[in-house]
């Protein structure tokens, strides 16, 4: 076993919101050709058939308003370019429908072109800095070609219990959440939401029934400082601009969901990293995964691959398309970065991952054999094998962030 795995005590997952790999990290191909980002000649046709090129013109805020559609029918259009199964039962993903999909929201041709914008790396020094300094996943896909809540369910349960929408009012006890599995086995696990006013997106099942699993971001910082970090924790960002409940000021959304300011998310990612990095009792034995839940309608050029079916079927009434969905293909690619001093600088990981890889990895590392898991989770690749360095990187070899 690699020494980095031998000493690993804590795994931290930070899940951000609604940005594709190319939108956030596509510019890194120019820095490292092994990163499957943008060459600059990728295009999508607009509603008049004119090809629209990708462009490094993304803005921190005010560009993706209205929020690009990322519900199942829109993502189907984005991935398949508007070709339906009725037109071609063997249709192939071509990633040619992003501009058309965004056009459908306002019928504004010029505005629809904005969906092809991506961030130059210097605008995202935290995210791109971590990607360059540690390991970036070339093939981490959202679990479902659909919106937030069903995708986040895969990170908690290894399945969405058949849901492809935001209506995850499941009471399904078929598979325990990864937190419940760990706690039942004597381990510690927590979900840290930002604060009570932002709270968790895991409301109906875990927050309602297992409130002791939760803490705030302040608790995360405190737990880091006091060396009380759980074995596994999942961190949620601030989802809204709101007044601090204690009246001390204004709290800006840090989730990077359009149209929230992306810089606040950069700060949040740096805050999580710093809390671990600055504690010598945590840094050597903690792995941090930064991942986005889904692409939020923004362009990505890599067609999602097929995957092992989930054992569920979402009917057309749920998908909003003429076809049922068998959970047999993944959603659009998202940014994912693995941070640890046991990861070699500039690592690029080519294996396919999805959000079921999160409970799969946690369960494998802390519990070993555990059978009652979804087929998708059992099939998912695990990612700790990438903590592969024979010796830990020196302290001054790993980045720090400053205000």
């Amino acid at each position, binding site marked *: 076993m690699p020494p980095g795995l031998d000493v690993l005590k804590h795994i931290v997952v930070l899940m951000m919101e609604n940005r594709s790999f190319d939108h956030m990290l596509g510019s890194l191909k120019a820095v490292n050709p092994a990163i499957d980002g943008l060459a600059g000649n990728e295009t999508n046709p607009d509603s008049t058939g004119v090809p629209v090129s990708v462009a490094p013109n993304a803005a921190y805020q005010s560009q993706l308003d209205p929020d690009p559609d990322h519900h199942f029918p829109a993502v189907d259009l984005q991935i398949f370019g508007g070709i339906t199964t009725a037109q071609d039962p063997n249709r192939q993903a071509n990633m040619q429908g992003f501009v058309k999909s965004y056009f459908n929201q306002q019928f504004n041709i010029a505005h629809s072109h904005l969906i092809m914008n991506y961030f130059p790396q210097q605008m995202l020094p935290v995210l791109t800095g971590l990607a360059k300094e540690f390991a970036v996943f070339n093939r981490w896909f959202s679990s479902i070609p659909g919106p937030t809540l069903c995708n986040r369910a895969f990170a908690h349960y290894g399945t969405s219990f058949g849901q492809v929408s935001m209506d995850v009012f499941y009471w399904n006890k078929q598979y325990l959440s990864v937190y419940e599995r760990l706690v039942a086995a004597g381990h510690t696990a927590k979900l840290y939401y930002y604060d009570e006013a932002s709270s968790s997106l895991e409301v109906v099942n875990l927050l*309602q029934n297992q409130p002791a699993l939760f803490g705030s971001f302040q608790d995360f910082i405190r737990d880091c400082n006091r060396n009380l970090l759980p074995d596994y924790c999942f961190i949620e960002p601030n989802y809204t601009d709101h007044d601090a409940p204690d009246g001390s000021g204004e709290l800006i959304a840090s989730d990077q969901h359009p149209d929230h300011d992306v810089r606040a998310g950069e700060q*949040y990612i740096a805050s999580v990293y710093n809390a671990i990095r600055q504690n010598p009792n945590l840094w050597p034995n903690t792995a941090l995964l930064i991942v986005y839940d889904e692409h939020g309608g923004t362009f990505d050029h890599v067609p999602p691959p097929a995957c092992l079916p989930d054992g569920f079927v979402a009917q057309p009434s749920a998908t909003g398309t003429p076809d049922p969905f068998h959970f047999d293909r993944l959603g659009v690619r998202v940014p994912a970065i693995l941070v640890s001093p046991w990861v070699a600088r500039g690592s690029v990981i080519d294996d396919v991952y999805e959000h079921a890889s999160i409970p799969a990895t946690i369960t494998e590392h802390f519990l070993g054999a555990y059978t009652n898991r979804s087929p998708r989770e059992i099939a998912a690749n695990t990612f700790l*094998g*990438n903590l592969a360095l024979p010796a830990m990187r020196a302290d001054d070899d790993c980045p720090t962030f400053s205000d």
Partner: protein
Amino acid sequence: MEPIRVPHPPPEAFNKNRRVSDLIRAQVNHFKHVEQKLSAGQRQAIPQHEIGTEGEAALYIAAMTAFLRGQPVATSSPGQQPVAGIRLVGPQRVARPKPADGIAIAASAETKSAPAQTVKKKNSAPKETK
């Protein structure tokens, strides 16, 4: 290695009067779903204002979260300190928002899909780092 400078959002990026996204709308609906199961007495502590903006959603969500976690409603935990870098310090200068489109209370919890087939077990592929 030189520290990497973190970008900061400007104060004008803050807008608690922004209309809620589908995500926040869904989150509120999930809390409404939970709230419906509370007793009348318990619901008295939960604000019942119309929710159209992020600030309005946050007020409701804070109360529900505090209730579910057994904390005093509408107060923060004692001893909490601002987290550096993600708080915009300044006067609470945002005017009370005009009610926007409210959120319908409570969605149903019906599952629209059902388990179908069992699948063949597959081993994880070996990991490779370039």
